Each structure stands twice: as C-alpha cells, then as structure tokens.
C-alpha cells in the first residue's frame, strides 16, 4: 500500500486501555512526509479522587513535542471563548519545552458518574518533515455537565530552535507528540481538593495524514 499524494489516511489509533484512565498519551516515530498531519482526540474528562471531596476543576492540556526542550522552546498563543461569554478572549504566553491551554471545566468524578464533560481536540501541522520553521495549530471544544460551562479554544504552538527568534528554521522534523491532562489542583487524589485528570470512558485518539511523499 504505497502512500500516494492524493490519499488521506488514518492510523495509530489509541482506544480502550491505551487511553482510558490515563493522564497522557504519546505518539512516537510518526511518519513525516505528509503534506499535513492531524492529531484527533475525542473523549470524556474525568477527575479522579479517593478522598470523597468533589469540586469542579479547570481542566488543562499540556503538550510537548520531540521530548520537550530537546529542540528548543515553544511559544503558545491562545484564543478562547468560555462560560457564556460571546466574545473572544486572547491569551499569549511563553512556555519553555511545552505548550499549555485550557480545555474547559470538568465536573465528572471517578468511574461511577461517567457521561458528560465531553471534548474534542484537533492538532495539525503542515509539512512535519521539513526543516522550515513550523507551528502546530490546535482547536479544542469542551462542554461540561453544567449548561453554562462551554469552552472553545484556538491557538498555536510554535516549534523553534530559539524561542521567539524570528526566521529561525526548525532543526528537527516533527515526529513525536505527547499530550497530558492536568487538573486545576493536581496531586494526590487521597488528599481532599487534589485531583488526577485522566481520559474517561470511550476516549479515542488517532492520527491522520493528508497527502504523502511530501518533504
């Protein structure tokens, strides 16, 4: 099955035990000769606690590429609509070695009450195999159990050998992607108010390549 330039392919799906109950997922050695690489994630959010204390938390996403600081740093820019506001709020922050954005507000605790706090994420990058300067775009949407808790995000993670240096070419192809979930108050779930953020039941992540033979 030779990959032709006119194909769109799906591969590398994580489902079931490969993602449910886990705080992070990772793809390594991703083929890079696509014109565009998409990373899709659809899932439910869960806050794990064994303390019996339950309080809704902001749910964050941390991503790193190529093992974090190995090839440099990332600038994260984020635009956000959330919690009933019709307007956009714009956030920009510099992060070294990883990129972070808010996913939404989670209100689901433990396995016993699955069912809500659903989200969709898409990351995409053009020409992941090139040595040209690259940025990873993302969009995410999350709707919580509570009606007013809706969040949509759009933004970029820039892959540079030198943070915020203009016209700097990337030294590496893009073939490693790690995404972790984090609650507003992470830590030991045995301690009241501390939560582990994990992927809930039915969560699924997969890769999608558009075109082939592209460098």
């Amino acid at each position, binding site marked *: 099955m030779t990959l032709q330039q006119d194909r769109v392919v799906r591969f590398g799906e994580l489902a079931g035990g490969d993602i449910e109950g886990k705080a992070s997922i990772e793809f*390594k050695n991703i083929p890079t000769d696509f014109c565009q690489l998409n990373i899709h994630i659809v899932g439910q959010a869960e806050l794990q606690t064994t303390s019996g204390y339950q309080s809704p938390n902001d749910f964050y996403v941390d991503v790193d590429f190529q093992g974090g600081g190995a090839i440099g740093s990332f600038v994260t820019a984020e635009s956000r609509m959330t919690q009933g506001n019709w307007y956009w709020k714009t956030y920009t922050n510099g992060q070294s070695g990883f990129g972070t954005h808010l996913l939404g507000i989670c209100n689901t605790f433990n396995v016993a009450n699955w069912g809500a706090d659903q989200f969709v994420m898409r990351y995409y990058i053009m020409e992941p195999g090139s040595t040209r300067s690259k940025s990873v775009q993302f969009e995410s949407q999350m709707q919580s159990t509570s009606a007013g808790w809706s969040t949509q995000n759009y933004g970029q993670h820039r892959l540079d050998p030198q943070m915020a240096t203009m016209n700097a070419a990337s030294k590496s192809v893009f073939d490693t992607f790690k995404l972790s979930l984090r609650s507003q108050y992470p830590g030991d779930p045995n301690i009241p108010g501390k939560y582990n953020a994990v992927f809930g039941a039915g969560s699924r992540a997969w890769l999608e390549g558009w075109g082939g033979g592209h460098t």
Partner: protein
Amino acid sequence: MRQERFSPSTNVSGWKGRQDYLKGYPGAAMSDALNGGFAGGGGYEYEDSYHLLSRSGGYSGMMNITNIPQTYRHLMLDFTMSQQSTYWAGTMPMVFNSAVGSQSFATDGNWDGMHGRFWGKGWSTGNQADNVSARDPAARSMGGYSNWPNSNTLWIYNYSDASKSLKPYKFRSNTNSGNASSYAGFMEGFGFLLKNNNSMGGTPSPAINTIRSYNNYQNGSGSYQSFALYGFGGLV
C-alpha cells in the same frame, strides 16, 4: 546502509503498510508494534479516511439525509443552505433522528437531546450565544438567502455507536451577503448528545441515522443548496 532504518521518520511514502512498517524499528517484531510498543496503541497501519457516503448536487426545501450508513466512526457534513423568502438570513437548527418538519428532537425515549452552546456574530445581526439542553438542538447552521454564499460544516463523533455515551458534535457556519445587505455572519458551536439530559449516569445515546435541517420558510432552492456527507476516522 538503509537510510530509513536510521532516520525512520523521513520518508514513508514508499513503504507498503504493515509489510514494511518495521523498517523504522530495527530488531522489533510486528506483534510489539500492534501491542503498543511504539505508539502506545495500535501500529501505524494506514487506512483510507474520508469516504464519501452521500452527496446532493441540489436539494430543495430543507435538508433531509436518511439511512446514513453505520459503517464509520465519525461523520463530517459539508453543506450550503438557504431560503427564498427574506434578507434576514437566520440560524437553522440541525436535528438528528427526528421527524420531517420538526425543529426539536424526537420524544421517542431514546434521548433528551443535546447539551451544548453556540456562539455567533454578525455585522448587522450582532452577537448571539445560547446554551441549549433538552430537546432543543444546539447544532445550527447559518442559512443564507437565495444564492448568497454560505458554508457550513458539521462533525458528529461516534455517530454509529449506540453503546457509548460519548457522542460530541461541533459545527462551523458562515454566510455572506456581499454588498447586497449587511447580514453577513459567523457561528460555531459544540455539545454532545444525551439520552438523559443533565444526567451523569452515562446512559448511551442512540446511533444517528438521520440528519435534518429546519427553518420557518422551508423553501430553499435546489439551485443553491447542496451537501456532501463523509465518514472518517476509521471503519467500525
């Protein structure tokens, strides 16, 4: 030296799926790859995506897509939509598994409908946003007037899986009136489908086999309305 063994991510276009997959992983067995040794899950075996399930070169009245094949995990629907009555291009609900001419979800006991939010902004129509729950659909389209351009995309995830409570959707929609009026607008939204509204019990929502639109005029022209429905993200 085989270049791809030492730089496995640089060129995969000549590989032949499973047969050549391990070229990137010297000394590894395919069973390791398929058991999560590399990706943390399934191996990198390519499967074609975005299969065209149905299309219409022109439909009249409201959109009415029935008997959607239950063969793919996710759906993507591209469409244009309009009415022939008024400059006031408005929002048009998108409903699933409902009866013809209904702007709310069926009361068949299979679900309570959606739980979500949409945001919109128009040049003259201003801002609009709403949280929607129960049987009132939060998935909308931004319909146009006659031949004014408009564009809509709706994604539904896990549409074919009646065993999952995870069934989110999102949409993006815009319409433009050129210099004929000032009713250009943009809208987007996200939510999920539930059997039990506001319930966290995880009761699965039904598979989706019908997508219909609703508007008060119901007189869209086949000259200006069309759709293309795709399955993506893998076969079930």
